[in-house]
């Protein structure tokens, strides 16, 4: 314990304080995100864009081009919104390219455990990028967010493979819903 104030001297105002009119420059969440971004070495098939400039990093976009698996050949755009509560709170990630995928719904919600229930502050943007990559390599029909896609993947894998490749490459209708070719733009 230390003595902070001298009652007798009352309070001498330190003129050196240069706080005039300023607010806190940066949230602790942003400070941590800077570390993530400075260490983010993306694989060749993933790219990042900061639409608001290099110094506004709390919102950014990631484009993933799977180089293997059913979704190979497509390009998928994700938006990341990092809250000031980061890394206690996870980033909000959406897939804005419309996709027929058991774990992604038509609104772009993604069922990836580390984005919600299994998020830990030690995880990073890099971990999420790997998680998303994995989701496109191995869709998981046991935890569906798009139930029809999951059912098709389980019951008729050959048909699932065919419609996915077709929707990704050229675009097609599946169950009355049109999926444009996955070119990495906003089609959701």
């Amino acid at each position, binding site marked *: 314990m230390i003595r902070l104030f001298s009652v007798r001297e009352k309070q001498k105002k330190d003129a050196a304080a240069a706080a005039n009119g300023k607010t806190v420059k940066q949230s602790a969440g942003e400070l941590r995100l800077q*570390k993530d971004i400075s260490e983010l070495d993306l694989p060749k098939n993933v790219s990042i864009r900061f639409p608001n400039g290099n110094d506004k990093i709390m919102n950014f976009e990631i484009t993933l081009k799977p180089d293997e698996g059913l979704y190979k050949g497509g390009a998928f755009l994700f938006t990341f919104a990092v809250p000031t509560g980061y890394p206690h709170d996870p980033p909000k990630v959406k897939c804005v390219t419309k996709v027929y995928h058991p774990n992604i719904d038509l609104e772009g919600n993604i069922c990836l455990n580390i984005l919600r229930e299994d998020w830990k502050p030690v995880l990073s943007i890099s971990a999420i990028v790997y998680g998303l990559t994995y989701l496109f390599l191995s869709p998981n029909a046991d935890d569906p967010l798009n139930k029809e896609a999951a059912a098709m993947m389980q019951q008729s894998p050959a048909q699932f493979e065919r419609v996915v490749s077709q929707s990704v490459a050229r675009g097609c209708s599946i169950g009355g819903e049109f999926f444009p070719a996955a070119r990495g733009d906003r089609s959701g």
Partner: protein
Amino acid sequence: MELEGRWRDLDYLLNRQGNVVGPGFEPGPEIREFLQSDCRVLVVGAGGLGCELLKDLALSGFGCIDVIDMDTIDVSNLNRQFLFRMQDVGQSKANIAAQRIMQRISGVKVTPHHCMIQEKTLDFYEQFHVIVLGLDSLEARRYMNSVACSFLEYDEDGQPDLATVKPMIDGGTEGFKGHARVLIPGITPCFECTLWLFPPQTKFPLCTLAETPRSPAHCIEYAKIILWPKERPDDTFDADCEEHMRWMYDKALARASEFGIQGVTYQLTQGVVKNIIPAIASTNAIVAAQCTLEALKLVTMCSSGLNNYMMYSGTDGVYTLTTPYERDDKCPICSAGVSFDAAPSTTLQELIDMLMKDPDLGKHLSAPSVSYGSTNLYMRGALEQQTRPNLEKPISELVDGDGSVIHINDRQLVAAMKVRLKFGPSNGEMDS
């Protein structure tokens, strides 16, 4: 009119020596004078804890109190936020709380601020001797932590400059559990030092919500996360809007009946959507009392303070435990960081080379990135190409001037390292 004997108990504490007094405590009537006339205390939050804090502080002799809260009074607050009455519903919590305290307790001046904590500038926060937090979110705590730590400066020997230390007392309650914590930036751990302590909010897997709901809460979350953005994409959900909440409830109820789930009520919907944990008045009272006592001890030194975290649990009898949390000496927010001499004309590349050659700092660095506040000066990884042109620029062009604090990131560092630039009077012109 001053009631006779009003300050008798306080004077016992302030006018007499004791065995457990704090360092430098000199008993005498001027301490109470200071408390009543000069000492400035800020209460952040005028909710359950805030009402208790304001009452306790005012009755303990604090004469000049400010209170800040952006919220308005809701009918559901009235059971425990005892400064508010039915006719106050809809009005500013800060304004009404200030009014009521001044009506009931003579000689106290309470100044309300009905706004967000982020709207106030640093010089507003600087005027207070002590800041007491009665908040309900980690986000707001972290913000206030950045505020308090932004004043902190260290001397040449790495000791905190006491004139820049802005102490905070944090109270928190959740049902029958609560805590009180003393944060003295530079001396006790700040929130970022111990961020790992805060448990994550329980969240349900999205696929469970979408496909296999099992509980009423699953149905309500489904309505909130999936249905609202889908069916009302142009409306921003407002938890205080009756129509919005009613919509949420109807959707959740329909979902529940579809899956044969019992127990979705309007009240539960409100609870889940607003993330309400039942508030217990006695928990607030106990935690606020402890916080007030700590504030009193801190400014008067009439007793040594809490070291530095007290948890309280009223679930099974009454239990408290006090633990000293430890500082993280590498904390990017409250640690001393290092001073580094560089001429203003040094280019960013030269500065990075100098940092890497430095016998103390160099060993922690392999591929450093540099930022200045939100400005990313040189970032490896995702922004390397975009920020590379800055490497050729003199640092005087990139930062505000002598004493600017930059942050260094490196894979070898657990968190950003603070470096305070000293523009030596050596070679090169002094930049403004």
